C-alpha cells in the first residue's frame, strides 16, 4: 500500500511541477468545449440569395416568394440581375439565385405550373441542401398566398399546380456529399499534422541526443539542414498524398476535378511551412511528451476552424477572422478551389501566396531558432 502511495505521490509531485501540462490539462478542454458550443449554437449565417423575375408577369410571384423567404428562412436578400447570376455565384456575392418564369396569373389560373429555377454555388453540400429543403417547405405557403391573390374558389384552387422546381449547381452537384467536401481539406490536414509532429520530434531528438551540437560544429549550414530535412520528409508526404488520393478517388470515389500536379503543389508548399513550424516549435519542448502537447495547441484549433469540418462562411464572424489567421485555412480554400470547383492555379493564387508567405515565415523562424544554439 505504501509503495502504491509512494508512486501516486511521485506522479502528483511531477504533475504539480510541470506547470505547462497542468495548464493544458484544464485550459484546453474549456477552450475546445467553448469553441464547439459557440460554433454549434451560433445562428447559422444567412444564405445569400436573389429572387429574380424573368419577365414583368413574374414580378408578383417574385415579390411574394421574396417576402416568404425573408419571413420563414434564414436568408439575406440580394439584388442581382439574371445575366449576372453566374458571376455573382463565382465571386461569392450570392450562394443561390431563384429565377421565376411563366408565373403570369392567367397561366396559373389555367392550372399550368410556373417555372422555378434554383442556381446554387454548390461547393458546400450542407448549405446547399439546407436551402433546397427550406425552399421546398415554402412551396405550400406560396401556393396558399397565390390562392388568396387570385381569389379562386377552393375548388379551383385544387387546379393550382405546384411550381416546377429545377436545381442547377455551379460546382458539385446533387450527388455531391459531405465526403466530397471533406476530402480535400482532410488531405491537407493529414499532411500538416504528420509533418509538423515528425519534424518537431526528430529535431527535438537531434538536440537532446547531441547530434545537433555535432552538426553545428560541422561545415553544414542551417539552410542545408532545413533543405535536407524537407527533402527527406517530402518523399514520405508525397507518397502519403498519393495513397490518400488513390484511396479517396478509387475507393471512396469522391467527386473531384482539377489536376493532380496542382494538388501536389499545394501540399508541397504546405509541407514546407509545416516542417519548419515543427523545427521552430521543437525549441519550446524539452521532451517528446511536450511535443505531444502541441497537438491541442496547434492542431486542434485548425481542425475546428480551418473549414475542415464546416465551411468558414457558416461560422460566426468573430471566428472567421481567427480562421483566416490559420495556415491550414488557406490550404483548404486552395484545395477546394482546385478539386471541387475545378479552378485553375491562377484562380487559387491568393491562397497559394498566403501559404507561401507562411512557409517563408516559418523557414526564417526555424533558421533563426537554430541560431539560438550559437550562444
Amino acid at each position, binding site marked *: 500500500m505504501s509503495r502504491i502511495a509512494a508512486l501516486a505521490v511521485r506522479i502528483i509531485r511531477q504533475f504539480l511541477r510541470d506547470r505547462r501540462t497542468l495548464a493544458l490539462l484544464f485550459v484546453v478542454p474549456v477552450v475546445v468545449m467553448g469553441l464547439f458550443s459557440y460554433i454549434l449554437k451560433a445562428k447559422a449565417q444567412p444564405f445569400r440569395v436573389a429572387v429574380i423575375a424573368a419577365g414583368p408577369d413574374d414580378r408578383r410571384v417574385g415579390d411574394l416568394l421574396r417576402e416568404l423567404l425573408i419571413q420563414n428562412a434564414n436568408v439575406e436578400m440580394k439584388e442581382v440581375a439574371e445575366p449576372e447570376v453566374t458571376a455573382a455565384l463565382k465571386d461569392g456575392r450570392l450562394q443561390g439565385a431563384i429565377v421565376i418564369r411563366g408565373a403570369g396569373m392567367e397561366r396559373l389560373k389555367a392550372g399550368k405550373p410556373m417555372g422555378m429555377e434554383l442556381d446554387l454555388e454548390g461547393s458546400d453540400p450542407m448549405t446547399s441542401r439546407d436551402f433546397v429543403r427550406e425552399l421546398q417547405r415554402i412551396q405550400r405557403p406560396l401556393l396558399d398566398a397565390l390562392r388568396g391573390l387570385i381569389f379562386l374558389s377552393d375548388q379551383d384552387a385544387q387546379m393550382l399546380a405546384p411550381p416546377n422546381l429545377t436545381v442547377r449547381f455551379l460546382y458539385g452537384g446533387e450527388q455531391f456529399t459531405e465526403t466530397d467536401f471533406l476530402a480535400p481539406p482532410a488531405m491537407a490536414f493529414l499532411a500538416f499534422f504528420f509533418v509538423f509532429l515528425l519534424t518537431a520530434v526528430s529535431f527535438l531528438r537531434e538536440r537532446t541526443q*547531441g547530434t545537433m551540437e555535432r552538426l553545428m560544429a560541422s561545415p*553544414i549550414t542551417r539552410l542545408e539542414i532545413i533543405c535536407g530535412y524537407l527533402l527527406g520528409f517530402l518523399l514520405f508526404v508525397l507518397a502519403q498524398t498519393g495513397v490518400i488520393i488513390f484511396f479517396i478517388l478509387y475507393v471512396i470515389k469522391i467527386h473531384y476535378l482539377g489536376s493532380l500536379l496542382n494538388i501536389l503543389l499545394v501540399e508541397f508548399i504546405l509541407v514546407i511551412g509545416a516542417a519548419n513550424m515543427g523545427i521552430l516549435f521543437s525549441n519550446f519542448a524539452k521532451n517528446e511528451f511536450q511535443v505531444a502537447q502541441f497537438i491541442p495547441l496547434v492542431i486542434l484549433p485548425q481542425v475546428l476552424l480551418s473549414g475542415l469540418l464546416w465551411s468558414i462562411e457558416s461560422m460566426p464572424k468573430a471566428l472567421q477572422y481567427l480562421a483566416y489567421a490559420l495556415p491550414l485555412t488557406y490550404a483548404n480554400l486552395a484545395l477546394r478551389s482546385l478539386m471541387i470547383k475545378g479552378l485553375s492555379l491562377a484562380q487559387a493564387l491568393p491562397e497559394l501566396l498566403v501559404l507561401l508567405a507562411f512557409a517563408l515565415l516559418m523557414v526564417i523562424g526555424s533558421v533563426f531558432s537554430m541560431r539560438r544554439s550559437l550562444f
Partner: protein
Amino acid sequence: MSADPSRLENIVQLEGLCKRFGASEALKGISLAIPAGITYGLIGPNGSGKTTLMRILVGISRPSAGTARVLGRVMPDRGAARAIGYMTQLEALYQDLTVAENVSFFARVYGLSGPALRRRIQEVLELVDLAPRRASLVAELSGGMRRRVSLACALVHEPRLLILDEPTVGVDPELRILFWNYFARLTQAGASIIVSTHHLDEAGRCDRLGLMREGRLLIEGAPEELRRQAQAPTLEDTFLYFARRRSA
C-alpha cells in the same frame, strides 16, 4: 601570421578569453597557446569551464571578450570547421542507424564522397576496432562501443585538430587505455588533440596540461614540469597544490 595554416606553430591561440552566461562567468580571461602536433589535456573539476572553452574552439559558442584563434582563424569561423573534429560528452549518434550509416552521415556532412568516403569509413572503423560491427544498429551496441563509434564520427574527415570533451567519462579502464592508444596513433599521424578529462591518471599521457578551475587557467605546462614545480609525488597532488595556491 602565416597564410598556410599547416605551418602554424600554434594550433590554438587564446587571448584574454571570457565567456559570460547572464550573471555567471564561465571563463574569466584565459590566455594560452597550444602548439601543433601534441595531445593537450585540459584538467579540472566539473564546472571549471572546460566544455565552454571547447565549444568556443569548435565555433558553436561566441566569446564574450578576448579572441580564440584556431588554425589561424578567429572563431567562430565556419571555414575552420572542416579541419576540426569534435566529440561531445554525449554520444551524439543516431540510435536507429547502423554504425557505418552514422559514420557515413557525418563523413558526408564534412564533404566526403565516392571511393574516398568508403575508404575512410573502413579506415576509421578499423582504427576503433569496430569494422566487424559496421552493420549493427547503434542502439544494440554496448556503451563502450557507442563511445568508439562517436570517436569514429569525429575522426572520419581526417581533422587536423581533434577536440574531445571527456571522451572517457563512464568508460571502463580497459577501453580507456584503448582510447589513449588511438590518440597516440593520431598524433603520430600529425593530428593535434585537445582533450578534457577529470581522470588524473590519463593526464600523464598528455604532452602538455592546462589545469582549470572556476573559469581560470591555474597553470599549464608539461606534466613532469608541473609536478616538479609543485614538488608533488603524483599529478593529483600537483593539481591540489596549484588549486590551493590559487585560493590562498
